[in-house]
């Protein structure tokens, strides 16, 4: 069945494919090469992530998740989500699998937004490998201070939108 997200992606693919074709400079071929590399890199990982997530969804007690991270828990899940996201020391596969598992177990959208946003901004592995070396410790400190409220603000905004 064609879901809205699939339709959106198909529309984007057609639009961008048309733009690449119009350039007439081999962009489509380059994109296809890149696509093959990306498929080889991501697809096996994604399939394993989905299989692992399926088992996690059965193991994790969904009552516990929905009580502490569900919509009925109010603002508190936003804080749990935000702080947990800051502490995930791994790449997108782990962070998004955790989020998908929590979503499947009944976590509130606001908690998930806080979790993913916090991970995106404060991914520890990225900070250690790139940011300290490429941008310097002073810039890193400033960025961490000014960006610290962002996951929680995004979570509150989502909470307001979903409970309006």
């Amino acid at each position, binding site marked *: 069945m064609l879901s809205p997200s699939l339709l959106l992606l198909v529309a984007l693919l057609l639009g961008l494919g048309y733009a690449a074709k119009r350039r007439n400079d081999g962009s489509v071929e380059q994109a296809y090469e890149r696509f093959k590399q990306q498929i080889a890199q991501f697809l096996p990982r994604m399939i*394993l992530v989905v299989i692992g997530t399926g088992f996690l969804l*059965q193991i994790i007690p969904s009552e516990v998740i929905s009580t502490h991270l569900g919509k009925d828990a109010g603002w508190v899940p936003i804080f749990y989500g935000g702080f947990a996201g800051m502490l995930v020391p791994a790449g997108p596969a782990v962070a998004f699998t955790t989020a998908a598992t929590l979503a499947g177990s009944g976590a509130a959208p606001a908690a998930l937004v806080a979790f993913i946003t916090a991970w995106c901004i404060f991914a520890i592995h990225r900070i250690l490998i790139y940011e300290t070396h*490429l941008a310097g410790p002073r810039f890193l400190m400033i960025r961490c201070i000014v960006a610290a409220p962002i996951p929680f603000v995004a979570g509150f905004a989502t909470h307001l939108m979903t409970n309006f």
Partner: protein
Amino acid sequence: MSTKEPKKKRSKKRTIELAAYSAFCIFGAYYCYHLKGQDGFLAALAVQEEMLLGMLPRITMALGVASLLWVLLDPEKLKETIQKRRGWVKVVYATILGAVTPGGPSSSFSILNMFLSSGLGYLIGITYITAWSMLGVQRILIWDIPLMGTEQAGLRFISGFWLPAFAGLFAAWIFGKYEDEKRPC
């Protein structure tokens, strides 16, 4: 030899990653069967089948879109575009540029360094890198939409698209002011 070694390293890293994910699946399967019995195990398989059938077309399309964006967007041109703008338009451009910058951290941090060394300051630097980290289109396409769904991805985008500019303004206000005061007259 110099090109072969990083390739070797990458494939070793990929093998280790895949081994770790496989181990995660095997342990998950074992505990699922151990805790929930055959019924729970079969229910997990049904969830996986549903998720995979839903996700595979989306992932394939998302990777196609990300590959086209990678070819079509030129970070150098994007950087030049932002340098030509003034005032708040610059902040809007920094947000958009951060969101659409193709590639991983190495390309985004090199653009950030160019911004900082060309005197664009914390306002643009923080706005750009925050937008790249939280609104990155490639990440939204490859991970957010396939795993979380359009609605959740949309909620995250709508609730957060204005926040990188807020972070940039905050950084310029607090730290830019402090540095101005420190600078000799």
